[in-house]
């Protein structure tokens, strides 16, 4: 199942992260997981929430530019080589990974969850299912 990830543009200066976090807090929106990509000049905050449409509205109302992108939460074995096995399946299908990050809160029972941003999410879903690798539904990502 694909997830809607939100991303925000941040300038590389103090105080930039605080603003979106405060806006989300005021609306009672919980960040399930997030990742910050940074360059010397700017950063991109990517995150996942339960209700992305509402979060998007909240942030836009606060004057921010929000982009919604489809990402794929993949279950991997939480042991050495677990991620490598998933990556081999992805590579064998000739798919490119734009970026990925850990979904720590969703890790349980010897399994870890990793969020992947693929160039082509639909092709990735097909390749992962063909390789027997589980893609997690939203229910399994929510904190217990």
């Amino acid at each position, binding site marked *: 199942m694909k997830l809607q990830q939100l991303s925000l543009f941040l300038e590389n200066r103090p105080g930039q992260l605080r603003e979106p976090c405060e806006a989300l807090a005021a609306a009672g929106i919980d960040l399930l997981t997030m990742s910050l990509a940074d360059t010397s*000049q700017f950063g991109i905050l990517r995150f996942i929430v339960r209700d992305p449409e509402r979060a998007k509205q909240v942030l836009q109302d606060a004057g921010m530019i929000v*982009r919604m992108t489809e990402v794929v939460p993949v279950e991997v074995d939480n042991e050495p080589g677990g991620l490598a096995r998933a990556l081999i399946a992805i590579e064998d299908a000739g798919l490119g990974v734009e970026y990925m990050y850990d979904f720590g809160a969703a890790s349980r029972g010897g399994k870890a969850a990793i969020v992947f941003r693929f160039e082509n999410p639909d092709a990735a879903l097909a390749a992962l299912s063909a390789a027997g690798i589980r893609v997690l539904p939203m229910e399994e990502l929510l904190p217990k």
Partner: protein
Amino acid sequence: MSTWNDPPGGFHPISAPDYLPREQLAGIQLQRLQSVVSLAYDRQALFRGRMEGLGLTPSSIASLADIARLPFTVKTDLRDTYPFGLFACPMEDIVRLHASSGTTGKPIVVAYTQADLDVWSEVMVRSFVACGMHRGDVIQNAYGYGLFTGGLGAHYGGEALGATVIPISGGNTERQLMVMEDFGVTAICCTPSYFLHLIESAKDTKTDLSKLRVGVFGAEPWSDSMRERIQDESGIRAHDIYGLSEIIGPGVGIECVEQRGLHIFEDHFYPEIVDSETGEALPDGAEGELVLTTLSKQAMPLIRYRTRDVTAIMTEQCACGRTLRRIRRIGRRSDDMFIIRGVNVFPSQVETALLRVEGTLPHYQIILTREVGLDQMEVKVEVTPEVFSDEIRKLEALQQQLGASIENVLGIRVKVTLVGPRSLARSEGKARRVSDLRSL
């Protein structure tokens, strides 16, 4: 003519018109004004149409004061008539073309007959003489050679003065310094910011500049405090030279050794100050936009050309003895144009470049700084929903495309910085487009 046995640094005969009694100068000006207006009226359809629209003919000019009745010429007139629409001579009589730098699409083209080039050399010689230069001086001409008028203007002026000219052109600081020391350079022509860069570099390389005496600096705005810095750090005397290619190039005006305002060569260029909003003529001493009329130009006379440079005519007689009136140093312009590294830039050109990449115009701001003597231009561009991506490489590619597009339009390299939405200051809904932080 200066003769072989004139003492260097003495009175130069070519400078004689600098000292004409005012009444005699006014007589020359009126006669030249009447004939140049006739020439423009006969040969420039644009000017003739405007004159007819105002019910004027060349015979309407009976006194110098009548100049205020004539229509203005503006920069866009030159663009609208690109390339040769304002030429008042057949091509057979035109011996040189120059063109403006850094304009969107088509440049502005200017033309010279041999007589025009002679006038240009003459005013450059008079400029150099006013700076205390003479035969025997070794001039390093570090203005760019090419379509830009700075290089060739200073070159032929220097030769006509009888000085030794080194046509080194701009750039290659290391070679500039080597030549300066090894050739015993006594005078230099370049932009003031480039000269600051040269003296910074000379310190590092321990270049001996002790023979250098005079600098003739122009093609960008600078200030008295910058002059002090140049003079203190290099021991030379720094002069401001004024000009614009539409009128002739450098040599419209020059600071004499008194360094208090720039003498305008009024026998060739008639100055007026007008209110930049209403176009109304302002009295001497009042600050306004400088308007120039070419009194002797043949290939492309311009009547009442709006320079957009803001200054004032100084009334008191100069201690140097010249009767030519002076203008105050030009600190700002009446439009939003700015000059960076000798290139004229309008914010609208930056807008064109941004539009080409993004399709719609993002909010942006231009920031000008001066780092180790060199002017830098940064363009801050607000990220819009249309161009924002969750991928770093796409944003970096966007940044790079914006930079390339601006460089393509302006011909100079700039730094592009992506900034957050609504992060740039807007005053009364309109963003402040240019922030000039250069300490001139």
